[in-house]
């Protein structure tokens, strides 16, 4: 089980910036995600309108979530499946384990699932003598290395070719030492061969769900490799892990969301495999599972409904926000310290593990607004991060110096005349002291700033003074 290191975000970030391998991976992959999404969006003139549609569908689903979840369950049962309602991670782990034990499972294959990471299902199964095998290529190497994913759709975002080879040589003990891994294809072939036997041997297949559909009782997965489909088709038992906010009313609603999902995520028009699973093997079917279970998990979601964080529940986990985030681009996903990195993680993580644990994350933002501008369901991520900063302040969780200075600033800000006087005096004196070099390499109480860069010396009037003059002169 991975303990959250989110409280150590600052130390994590410093280490990440000094990690040459990580920096190589970030420099290679960051720009390509942005370019691919931009190309896909340019190819669909209706994209902006579809973002509004997507937002409205999720808002409608959330406003009636209790109703749609009950409809969903009724339709799962009609198709021969079963829904297991779980209030928290403990209950979800217990439900999965009890199904696996009842059917005598020895090995379990897994499709990629972020909720699976959130409830740390693999470690729980291992502790009880059941071997889980991640089958998504990225998740597979993360499992070999016993790490958390560093990105929600590209778990091995932080790794380079040499890391893959090293992990395979260490863990694939039957591997011929003379075998060469010259190209990415060689890595892929080795993983494909190794995992093929796991698919065939597994007793239970566990997948996540991108959507649950109330109209039909279906769970939907979106993948490119086909591993999720093999996971849910070959074993006798299929278990779906899904959090409650995945539920949407109809196939048409789901279809509209799918139109913005892949384009926002990988920049594909549509993922290779978009698969709708509904219940158990039907009479006459030659393949498919005989049992179908949905582990329906709350784990903190219902507590966000009706709060300023409700909008976060629209998230469809495309990762566009982290792909466009300058902070993620500088430090990668592991610095965030838990399952969900980037802007969406900075909003979701404090809600799930507590702002006392994850308070640094909503502070680790420049508020450039790029995340919100690319979000396919228009979540106002900077606004939600600001709400966490407010909560942190209200609960006296922020550091003393920060609180004192913020208090000092607020005192002046409420007295405009004094504020102008003080800023004018500060600008003038800084300008005078820095008049020779035009900048400061170090300043008392500002080491946090000048440690990494110079502070330019102010020139001329304050902003207020210039603004007032421009208004007077009509040049604004």
């Amino acid at each position: 089980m991975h303990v959250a290191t989110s409280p150590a975000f600052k130390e994590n970030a410093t280490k990440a910036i000094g990690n040459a391998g990580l920096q190589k991976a970030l420099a290679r992959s960051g720009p390509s995600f942005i370019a691919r999404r931009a190309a896909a969006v340019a190819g669909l003139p209706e994209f902006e309108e579809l973002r509004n549609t997507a937002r409205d569908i999720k808002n409608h689903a959330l406003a009636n979530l209790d109703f749609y979840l009950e409809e969903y369950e009724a339709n799962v049962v009609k198709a021969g499946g079963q829904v297991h309602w779980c209030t928290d991670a403990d209950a979800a782990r217990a439900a999965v384990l009890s199904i696996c034990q009842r059917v005598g499972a020895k090995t379990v294959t897994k499709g990629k699932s972020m909720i699976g990471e959130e409830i740390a299902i693999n470690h729980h199964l291992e502790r009880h003598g059941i071997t889980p095998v991640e089958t998504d290529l990225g998740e597979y190497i993360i499992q070999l290395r016993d790490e958390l994913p560093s990105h929600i759709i590209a778990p091995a975002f932080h790794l380079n070719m040499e890391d893959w080879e090293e992990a395979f040589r260490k863990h694939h003990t039957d591997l011929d030492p003379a075998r060469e891994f010259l190209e990415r294809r060689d890595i892929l072939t080795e993983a494909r061969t190794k995992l093929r036997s796991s698919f065939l041997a597994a007793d239970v297949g566990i997948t996540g769900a991108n959507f649950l559909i109330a109209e039909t009782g279906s769970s939907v997965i979106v993948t490119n490799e086909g591993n999720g489909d093999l996971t849910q088709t070959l074993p006798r038992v299929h278990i779906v892990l899904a959090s409650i906010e995945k539920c949407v009313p109809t196939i048409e609603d789901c279809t509209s969301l799918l139109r913005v999902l892949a384009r926002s995520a990988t920049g594909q028009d549509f993922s290779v495999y978009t698969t709708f699973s509904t219940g158990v093997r039907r009479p006459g079917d030659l393949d498919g599972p005989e049992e179908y279970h949905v582990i329906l998990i709350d784990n903190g979601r219902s507590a966000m409904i009706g709060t300023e964080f409700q909008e976060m529940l629209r998230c469809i986990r495309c990762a566009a926000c982290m792909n466009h985030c300058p902070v993620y681009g500088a430090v990668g996903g592991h610095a965030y310290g838990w399952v969900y990195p980037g802007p969406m993680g900075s909003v979701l993580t404090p809600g799930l593990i507590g702002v006392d644990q994850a308070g640094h994350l909503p502070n680790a933002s420049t508020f450039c607004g790029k995340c919100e501008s690319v979000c396919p369901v228009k979540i106002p991520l900077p606004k939600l991060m600001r709400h966490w900063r407010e909560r942190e302040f209200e609960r006296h969780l922020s550091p003393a110096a920060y609180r004192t200075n913020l208090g000092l600033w607020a005192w002046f800000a409420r007295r405009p005349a004094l504020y102008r006087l003080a800023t004018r005096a500060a600008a003038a004196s800084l300008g005078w002291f820095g008049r020779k070099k035009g900048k400061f390499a170090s300043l008392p109480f500002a080491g946090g700033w000048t440690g990494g860069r110079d502070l330019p010396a102010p020139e001329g009037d304050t902003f207020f003074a210039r603004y007032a003059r421009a208004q007077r002169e009509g040049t604004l």
Partner: protein
Amino acid sequence: MSKSLVLNAIRRGLRRGELPADQQTMLRGRLASHPRHLLPARSRLPHPEQINLFVRNVEKEFGSVARVADLSGVPAAVADYLTAHNLPSRLAMAPHPDLQAVPWNERPMLEIREGRAQATDAVAVTQAFAAIAETGTLMLPSAPERPTTLNLLADTAIVVLRASCLVGAYEEAWDKLRAEIGGMPRNVMLVTGPSRSADIEQTLELGAHGPRNLHVVLVED
């Protein structure tokens, strides 16, 4: 127990109890009528142009398409494809009436076994229920005559598609499914191109766990 805890927590958040009966009726109406949202203009075309759009999109996604005039052209198209790619001529085939009606004996070299796919199968042939021009996507619902494993296990997947089953947008394919099959089959796969992964250094490689090759034989009926 857990169910009522979750539902009550949601209702507390929404500051209401269970939805009033009239609102439930309205939402049931929405489920029953499943209204469409915006359909992108790109697929709003005459049928022949939808076919061309479909072919372009399949090829863009690294699949291939052979166009034949009728079912009797299928054996030659399949045999030619296998020869051109140096693939074995043993096929695992879906027991679908459309495929059973194909005059396979015209190509005696093709060795055909009907049923689901086995792990050792190199080439699988199945039938598409529908296809979507918008993104070059095949709709493959599970059925006794269309086993899901044929879409997944073989290295090469060949899909026979009647042009008359091709539509512009996903919504039209779902309506066709509702009209012709009724309820939701156990599994509906929407397949767009061959399997791939970009997990190694975010660089695309074809043929991850599913088929490396996806070939569509388009029957222009």
